[in-house]
């Protein structure tokens, strides 16, 4: 009998593929169902946000940041604003800080909900997607009361926030939070307690503690690998030191751990929002700011714990009304570099699970 010749197959996953979550292209080399090589190809959504910022004033750059991680716009606003505030030397009113924390944590919830739904959908469970979007709808409604926008907020400004938090917003948020924990229990019933889901995620897409650190991944991906690192605690900003919350970590660093970390983070975020609502002080929602902003010459770097990981803004000022240079450290982009390491020996179906568990947003990867 002649010897059978087998060959590996190169397959393009994306940029038009249902589960690359946007315009990511993965070049897969597969042998049967097993993936032997994978490279992520990015750049299809490049809009030159960093360059655009140079030709706009400081405040005109805030709306640009909304378009980075578009499922959690508030975090991007905050990271950029914190960097510029270092150059402006302003004192942010306490009420504004609390509103910022509420807004950012609401954004985190929205981001994690979108992730949970689409991740479950990647694994073939289509119902959680609709459930998660139901909750997200409440969050977006609340944020709409807060700032008039649902996705691209342009809300957090230098020295405070754009508008005050109205009683209607507080009421809406509390109403949402009153059912939220029960809803998360429901999702866990559908997924965490489902044997198929556990089989699909446990032991898949392993990223060891050492690898995670050496790839400089951050956020839930890092914590899933068992590294207790959260900028809200380790490099605190805003009023996070006053908040009481737990930083969940995983053990093995597989897809399931990243999933579990995010679900626990949702509960913690709800906890933070409750504390912030309870402690919301009276006062101004913004500091007095000059009409034309000209930060002092110099440079500043700020970093926050965005839903996807460590989001950093490096802003360089030459003393004029627009920044000289803005560099964005996007967590999704850096996390994506660890994809080949995570998908060693994976099957095609695992690729989808691994990619889904990283929670990348292409608006942020490509900037």
């Amino acid at each position, binding site marked *: 009998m002649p010897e059978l010749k087998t060959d590996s*197959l190169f397959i393009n996953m994306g940029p038009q593929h249902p589960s690359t979550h946007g315009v990511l292209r993965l070049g897969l080399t597969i042998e049967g*169902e097993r993936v032997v090589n994978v490279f992520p190809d990015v750049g299809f959504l490049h809009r030159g946000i960093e360059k655009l910022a140079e030709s706009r004033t400081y405040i005109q750059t805030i709306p640009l940041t909304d378009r980075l991680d578009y499922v959690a716009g508030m975090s991007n606003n905050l990271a950029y604003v914190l960097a510029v505030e270092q150059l402006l030397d302003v004192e942010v009113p306490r009420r504004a800080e609390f509103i910022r924390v509420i807004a950012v944590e609401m954004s985190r919830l929205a981001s994690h909900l979108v992730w949970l739904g689409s991740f479950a959908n990647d694994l*073939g469970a289509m119902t959680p*997607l609709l*459930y998660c979007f139901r909750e997200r709808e409440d969050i977006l409604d609340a944020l709409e009361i807060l700032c008039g926008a649902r996705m691209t907020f342009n809300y957090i400004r230098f020295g405070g926030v754009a508008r005050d938090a109205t009683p209607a917003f507080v009421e809406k948020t509390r109403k949402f939070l009153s059912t939220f924990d029960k809803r998360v229990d429901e999702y866990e019933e*559908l997924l965490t307690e*489902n044997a198929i889901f556990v089989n*699909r995620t446990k032991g898949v897409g392993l990223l060891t503690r050492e690898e995670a650190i050496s790839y400089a991944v951050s956020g839930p991906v890092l914590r899933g690998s068992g590294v207790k690192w959260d900028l809200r605690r380790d490099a605190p900003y805003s009023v996070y030191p006053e908040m009481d919350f737990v930083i969940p970590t995983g053990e093995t660093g597989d897809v399931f751990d990243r999933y579990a970390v995010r679900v626990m983070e949702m509960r913690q975020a709800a906890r933070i929002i409750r504390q912030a609502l309870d402690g919301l002080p009276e006062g101004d929602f913004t500091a007095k700011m000059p009409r034309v902003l000209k930060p002092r010459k110099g440079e500043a770097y700020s970093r926050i714990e965005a839903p996807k990981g460590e989001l950093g803004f490096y802003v360089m000022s030459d003393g004029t009304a627009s920044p000289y240079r803005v560099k964005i450290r996007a967590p999704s982009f850096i996390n994506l570099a660890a994809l080949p390491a995570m998908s060693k020996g994976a099957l*095609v179906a695992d690729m989808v699970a691994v990619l889904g568990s990283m929670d990348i947003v292409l608006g942020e990867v490509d900037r």
Partner: protein
Amino acid sequence: MCGGRRDAVAGRDAGGVRLGRRGERTTESNMGLIESLKFIWLFLPNLMPREFYELGVMAVAFLAVVIFITLMVLFMVWFERKVVGHMQVRRGPLHTGGFHGWAQSIADTLKLFLKEDIVPRGVDRPVYILAPLIVFMSTVVAYIVIPFSKSLVARDINMGVLFVFAVSSVTTIGIFMAGWGSNNKYSLLGAMRVAAQIVSYEVPLLLSVLGVFMLAQTLSLSGIVEAQKHVWYVFLQPVGFVIYVIAGIGEVNRLPFDIPEAESELVAGFHTEYSGLRFAFFFLSEYANMFVMSSMATVLFLGGWHGPVLPGFVWFLLKAFSFMFLMVWVRATYPRLRVDQMMAFCWKILLPLAFLNLLVTGLVMAAV
């Protein structure tokens, strides 16, 4: 000559697509018309050569089956979208046709009919074109032996169960042809998965049914239903039923076993390159196949047409659609298995369980 005629009459008796239904609808006033139609019907075989008559019966049966499948699939698609919609806190189709979007699936079908027929360059043309037909035909043929009620069955052959399972495995060949002939890597992966899956699921599926044969002592579908007059086999063969449900869902490639067309992995699997009418055939046969599996469950485990008050035909459809509802429910709940897990589950759990079930059934039967 005379003997030939009697055979023809006997053939008609076995053919069975007649009388029962029409007879039930008879009213006093048009009795005369019905009676004369009956008369013509009875003597039809004597008026023409036997081959013609047989062909005629086959054509009528085929037409009836195709019309039934079309209506059933149209309803089922709408039903599934409604059920899944409500399970997902949505409402499903709501506008087309007025009442709860009842015309949605009709509109969708019309759209598919009117679409341009695209055959991509680079496909293996004959294979590509034949594939949907083979899939569709093999599904339709299975309907010929399904006993909808005591008299409503196109052909009651004495090994109906084997026929259904044999014929519905031919679907695999069609699907594999589609995947292979499409000249698309995703389709090819889907085709590979189909082959692996069907080989795995056919075995426990048939083994789970074997217990029923042993109890009923017959392979005829009508015979099996008759044998369940007093107690349904789902109570005598609970393990067999569970295996049948799992393997049956695997057989029709639906969640959690929709591995061949896993849309989040393989875009659309084997039918990635199909559109319009050709895609409609795949779609139609998926749902038609679902119904075959459901009606087999009804016949083998749920007592077929037996039930109080309502006519047998209604009972049969009720049971079959309940089983379809179960499939829809499962689809709305579970994530998808991975290829290797699916195979492991099948060979390491389902198969031994099916053998054990068979053994226990045999021992109990020997003891009683």
